[in-house]
């Protein structure tokens, strides 16, 4: 069931996720479409999230947006979810929710400053943007980065501060899958007045799933759900984004992840296991559920296929 509506205010609304920023011309959502989208969300009981471009919106737009409870996602330090192009000073980010879009290489060279932020921010979300195809050396680099960050997270926890970093602590805190769920729990209204599973699908003009007049009508909507994802439903990398857009691009199907997505998520999962182990081995107890070690990095091996 759909619970969230993301409204893209412009084609150049900043990416908060795996898809790249759009580099084309501005295309502001028509005011009437914005208003209709807000009314649609109210009638369908959907939580609203607005995705902002880098320029100042006209006053009438701000007025329309501020008439309803919502979350702002923008590359602006006042937003509810701040998209960060570079690492800001930790002191300026107290209790903020931050999004960093990193390549594997960029993450490796930002580890220290990222760990600083974990002391002050409410939540840090790291999105790996070059998820596939990934070489073995990138996997290794990511694994090493995760290990270093996991060490810092462990120290913070032992010192009494429990940080939130999606790629390491989400798996520890979750007891079931908590994926992006685009097309299932969440849809996007684009400036063209159509619904898409997420902004990435709008940019490619693939998989439009309805419009404001007819509502959300996704063909084969079940394929966006976990029970129809044959590999993911067997998996316990609960923190995985399970990015349906990447799935579609890499494998041709929204319900089938690439090998790379699975390996990356399992490297994260395994690093989470290490955090719990390190804390326990140092004589501290942390009231979390244990996570089993696995022999695989890609859960397709749990299926009886070659």
């Amino acid at each position, binding site marked *: 069931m759909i619970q969230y509506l993301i409204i893209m205010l412009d084609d150049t609304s900043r990416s908060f996720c795996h898809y790249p920023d759009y580099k084309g011309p501005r295309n502001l959502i028509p005011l009437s479409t914005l208003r209709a989208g807000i009314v649609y969300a109210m009638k369908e009981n959907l939580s609203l999230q607005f995705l902002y471009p880098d320029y100042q919106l006209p006053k009438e737009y701000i007025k329309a947006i501020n008439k309803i409870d919502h979350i702002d996602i923008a590359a602006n330090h006042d937003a509810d979810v701040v998209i960060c192009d570079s690492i800001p000073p930790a002191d300026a980010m107290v209790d903020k929710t931050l999004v960093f879009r990193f390549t594997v290489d960029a993450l490796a060279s930002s580890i220290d400053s990222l760990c600083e932020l974990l002391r002050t921010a409410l939540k840090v979300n790291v999105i790996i943007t070059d998820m*596939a195809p990934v070489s073995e050396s990138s996997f290794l680099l990511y694994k090493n980065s995760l290990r270093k960050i996991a060490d810092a997270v462990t120290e913070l926890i032992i010192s009494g501060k429990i940080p939130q970093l999606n790629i390491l602590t989400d798996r520890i805190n979750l007891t079931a899958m908590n994926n992006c769920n685009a097309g299932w729990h969440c849809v996007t209204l684009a400036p063209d007045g159509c619904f898409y599973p997420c902004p990435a699908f709008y940019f490619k003009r*693939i*998989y439009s799933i309805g419009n404001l007049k007819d509502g959300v009508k*996704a*063909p*084969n909507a079940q*394929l966006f759900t976990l029970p*129809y994802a*044959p*590999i993911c439903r067997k998996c316990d990398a609960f923190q995985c984004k399970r990015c349906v857009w990447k799935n*579609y691009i*890499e*494998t*041709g*199907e*929204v*319900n*089938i*992840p*690439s*090998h*790379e997505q699975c390996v990356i998520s399992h490297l994260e999962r395994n690093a989470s296991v290490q955090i719990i182990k390190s804390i326990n081995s140092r004589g501290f107890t942390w009231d979390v559920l244990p996570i089993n070690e696995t022999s695989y990095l890609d859960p*397709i091996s749990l*299926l009886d*296929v*070659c």
Partner: protein
Amino acid sequence: MELQANKAPFREIPGGWQAGSSKSITFIVTKDCQLACKYCYLVGKNTSERMSFDVARSATDYILSMEKDPLFAFESVIWDFIGGEPFLEIDLIDKICDYIKCELFRLNHHWFNSYRFSFSTNGINYASEKVQKFIKKNLDHLSIGITIDGTKEKHDLNRIYKRQDNEQEHGSYDDVVKNIPLWLSQFPDGGTKVTISSNDIPFIKESVLHLYGLGIHDVSINCVFENVWKDGDDQLLEKQLIELADTIIDNELYKDFACSFFSETIGKPLDPENDNNNWCGAGKMLAIDAAGNFYPCTRFAQYSLRNKCARIIGNITEGINRNKVRPFLCLTRTDQSRLECIECDVASGCAWCQGENYDSADSDTIFQRSTAICKMHKARVRANNYYWNRLYFKENNK
């Protein structure tokens, strides 16, 4: 030819050579054909896309280099050549087969002792000198099926020659049937595949009996998977099959001849966990076209698709893209079926074509099963039940 029966209880359609333990590799050698069959699913046939030997050689080199890879680790291999009409490219095929044999030997590949070359032909060129020379050279490693739809009337209804705008429709029956005795002398167990579309239903009974009369013992028939069925077609099919059942049983033809419409295993419910396999081997098979692109089966190449883009899973230079193969490996019956199909009381034997599923799906997915065939399957099940009830009664009361 007289119909004769032997003493066996009943004949069954044999499983394919090394079924389940062979990798199927298909070369789409040409997209051309002498015929323009009305039910042909190949929407993009043309005379220009012919495979070059270089492409075939590179594909072979790649495939043989993957001997230990799980995607290729099968006991045996079937090298399948299709078109259009494959025998239009007999020179190329001969050269490819020679190359494959030499390479299997040179590499000491485990397939050297376990390979087949397989063809499905319209039969028109079957007796030509070049085709015959090829057959004699490779006889021990060949399977060839000739497609003949039944009586002249039924066959010529669909299997007609290509023609210019003002040319008269011209069926191919006479040119095919004359080659059947030669084919059966070389492949005594040769079977034929018959495809039924809406207009063919009234001819089913006489066509199957006609094929038996030609000496073909195994007739595999299926209704096309496309959404072509009209109101009342299911009743017509049931009636035809019951008449066919009566004739087969009254004349005890079941002892010596088989028709795939009648099978003991169809028409039962299927367990969602234990009977959950995909119908076909798409993804475990590999098809290669003239451009050197790889497909999970030929039905995913562009010339087979009406509505969707081709599903390319690699090519001869970069090899297989494993991410593109993953959806095919994961396909199960229940993941692509609606609840109605999962809970169906007569689900077993209800077939689907993965390519047609994809082509007719409401979105770009292989996970939506086309059910255009539903009422035809149910009609077949009713006739099939009738057939076995009559047959068991007859055999038990002798």
